[in-house]
């Protein structure tokens, strides 16, 4: 198992290096003048030059790439200067001459627009997105699996057909549309009953300056974000369950005299979960990259909104940073999913040993 995990980690690292290179080529490898974009059209030559030096834009492209990788890598080499010490906030490992080998958290450079470190901006937005994505996936998985199982057990009844109909409509609604629709119905038309706000964030500020959790504000974003995966999980669970219920070992379980609950819970459901787990992990990873439409509509200060705002302002370091963080999360979620597979299915476990 340990060799398996270390192998997977190695793969993950390779993927991330690939992503870093791709991101660089996309945003900095193409022709264009980032310095002008940062400072606008009417900046003096000296400022432009400073920006150029900061981003190493005066060097050839391949050197720019090396600098970029060096900036991002947690293990890197820098010139031994005070400004570098401040800029990277590193811990020295070993010094040799003018250079120093250091450990640091990845340096994602500065936002063109806000002149704040990109990593700070991302770290600020990340918890909001994680909370939103986690609650949405939890909502979708629990209800999806329960409803899917229920539909499978009542195959071809009216209830089953109704559930399929609803879930097909759920899949076909684009999220920006359902977000606006839900917002309008539940936070505007029915606001006096539901008391849900139109927009808002995880924390709200009191008049006296204290912050407190704002549960009401998260309900609508979670539901709208979860509704499409919910529909997908319901259908997947239903069809996987129907397949499993046809299998020989279910007949064995019935021949043992087990009651329906035991058959479904102990024998059928775990066997049906594999495709559902695959879907859950995919959706979760995607949500972690930022639920762009939902965050925009509900004015939720997560990664998605940060990215969209940055794109609007051509703030490339922020966009690059958020692409990197999204792909890192993707890789992490995939690793976890692999471990979950092994936990569910002993056959996968022994194949890895």
């Amino acid at each position, binding site marked *: 198992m340990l*060799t*398996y995990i270390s*192998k997977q980690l190695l793969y993950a690292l390779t993927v991330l290096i690939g992503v870093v290179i791709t991101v660089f080529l996309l945003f900095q490898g193409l022709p264009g003048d980032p310095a002008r974009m940062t400072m606008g059209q009417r900046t003096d030559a000296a400022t432009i030059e400073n920006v150029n030096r900061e981003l190493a834009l005066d060097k050839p492209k391949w050197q720019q790439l090396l600098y970029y990788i060096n900036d991002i890598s947690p293990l890197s080499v820098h010139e031994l200067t005070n400004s570098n010490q401040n800029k990277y906030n590193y811990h020295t490992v070993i010094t040799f001459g003018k250079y120093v080998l250091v450990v640091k958290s990845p340096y994602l450079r500065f936002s063109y627009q806000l002149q704040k470190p990109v990593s700070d901006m991302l770290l600020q937005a990340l918890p909001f997105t994680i909370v939103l994505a986690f609650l949405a996936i939890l909502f979708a998985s629990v209800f999806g699996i329960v409803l899917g199982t229920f539909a499978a057990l009542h195959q071809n009844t009216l209830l089953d057909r109704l559930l399929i109909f609803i879930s097909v409509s759920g899949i076909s609604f684009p999220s920006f549309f359902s977000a606006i629709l839900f917002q309008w119905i539940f936070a505007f038309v029915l606001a006096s009953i539901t008391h849900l706000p139109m927009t808002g964030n995880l924390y709200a500020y009191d008049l006296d300056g204290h912050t407190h959790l704002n549960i009401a504000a998260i309900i609508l974003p979670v539901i709208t974000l979860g509704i499409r995966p919910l529909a997908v999980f319901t259908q997947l669970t239903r069809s996987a369950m129907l397949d499993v219920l046809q*299998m*020989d*070992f279910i*007949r*064995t*379980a*019935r*021949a*043992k*005299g*087990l*009651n329906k609950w*035991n058959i479904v819970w*102990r*024998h059928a459901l*775990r*066997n049906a979960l594999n495709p559902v787990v695959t879907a859950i992990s995919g959706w979760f990873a995607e949500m972690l990259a930022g639920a762009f439409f939902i965050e925009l509509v509900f004015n939720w200060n997560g990664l998605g909104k940060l990215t969209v705002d940055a794109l609007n302002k051509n703030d490339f370091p922020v966009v690059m940073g958020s692409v990197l963080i999204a792909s890192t999360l993707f890789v992490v979620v995939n690793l976890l999913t692999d471990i979950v597979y092994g936990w*569910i*299915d*002993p*056959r996968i476990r*022994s194949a890895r040993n």
Partner: protein
Amino acid sequence: MSKDEFSLSVHNLNLFSGETRLLHQVALDIKPGEILGLVGESGSGKTITSLSIIQLLQKSGLTSTGSIRLKGSDRNVLDLSEHELQKVRGNHVSMIFQEPMTALNPLMTCGNQVKEIIVQHRKLNDHEAKSEVLQLFEQVRLPDPSKKYSSYPHQLSGGQKQRVMIAMALANKPSLIIADEPTTALDVTVQAEILHLIRDIVREHQAGLLFISHDLAVVSSLCDRIAVIYRGEIVEEGDSKALMEQPKHPYTRALLACRPAAHKQGQRLPVVADFLGNDSRPQHKTISVTQEAFDRPTDAYLLEVSKLTKSYASGSVLQKAKTEYLAVNEVSFRVRRGETLGLVGESGCGKTTLSRCLLMLIPPDSGSIRFQGEEITTLHHDQLQSWRKKVQIIFQDPYSSLNPRLAVGRAISEAMLFHKIVSSAQEARLKVQDLLVQVGLKPEHYHRYPHEFSGGQRQRICIARALSVEPEFIICDESVSALDVSVQAQILNLLNDLKSAFGLSYLFISHDLSVVRYMSNRIMVMQKGQIVEEAPSNQLFEHPKTDYTKKLIAAIPKLQHENNYVKT
């Protein structure tokens, strides 16, 4: 005798699906400690009879009438509610299913699966239940019971899994055990052990056993009494010995007669239709098989294989010491033109890998394959493709080896058009229709889809497909193993007819030794990737040299009380 003394007593059981009658007045009585064999072919109603006894039939729209009574209860099983049935299942009646590979839950340890049935029906705490399971595992002679307790099904061999199933069936000391083809999926040596175990256990526990099988030899060696079921009706029932010696019903006689074990090579196998005298028999050009077909092998070698080796690496890329598993280990043999070479061996011995290597579907690691003197292993892609039409294969499972979305005619003509054996689609069609007739089907079947055919008919389609490219050599990989004995007889006859008509050579692979004996001129025995013995058929059976061959032959279930049933 009062009703209480029967483990099972079934009377006038009828089962209807809408207007169709699936079971007709079925009656069965089993005393404690007695083994009743229920014999019939697929679709005869033997499985639905067994599932009816504990009401496990899942299809809705089924209605049954009659009575099914179990020991210790005077209530009719048909009148019980679902809740009451749950108390009967696994407690008073238990089942052993055919496929131990799929009948166990893959995600649950073997111990827990057996424990579950105990806890469900008796008030035992976890510890007591566990120690009972371990005792059961010992009773069914599972090696290392405490380790097997926490093993998952995939970590056990097929025979061991079936032992777990048997332990499960015994757990609550039921008065009736139903075993539905419990050894059909197992190797012949394992089958012998499992049958032995089942008999011992039934005698020891004084449970009644309903043993369902298509294999008369197995049934006759195990059962006290035998019932023969045909089209949902029990046509004959009686003491094993009497039934085998003096089969009364023509269907029973037919079943006995069409087994290849009862015939010499070159004799045509009788089929069920010969006995029942109905006209549903497929009309095909019969080419008479004679001894001649077996004497025909010429001296010219068609296929020469030498030192063929194929290994599979196991273990990860990162591990330095890769463990190699030799699936085929330096195998050498030769096949003459017009000869049938048999290949037998237990599952996992490398039969299938060998056949795939011969077709170059899997490239061998080393060794040479010469076909008509030409080296095949070094051919380039294009040359290989045009060579492929000379060698064809007929697979085991006619259900999964035909594309369900492709009409039969298209499936057969595909390769003909590819190899440019015919110049136009029009010509292909005429040729395919001709082939269909040759394999005993009808020209109008051209446009039908595979699901419209029975298993035997599908195998005929597969044969037609193999023949379409006019091959010289055909590999039959367990080609009749999935078929009923009467259908098997038809297909074997067809293969022999085609052999003498087209001068074909076969490599006939099977785990069923009596079929291989009937079909082959020579037989090779394969064990762990190697050919351990090779001899002319009869010589191999009469004077086996290696212990392994002796063991295989000894394990073949023999028909007990054999008599002059061959007469029609």
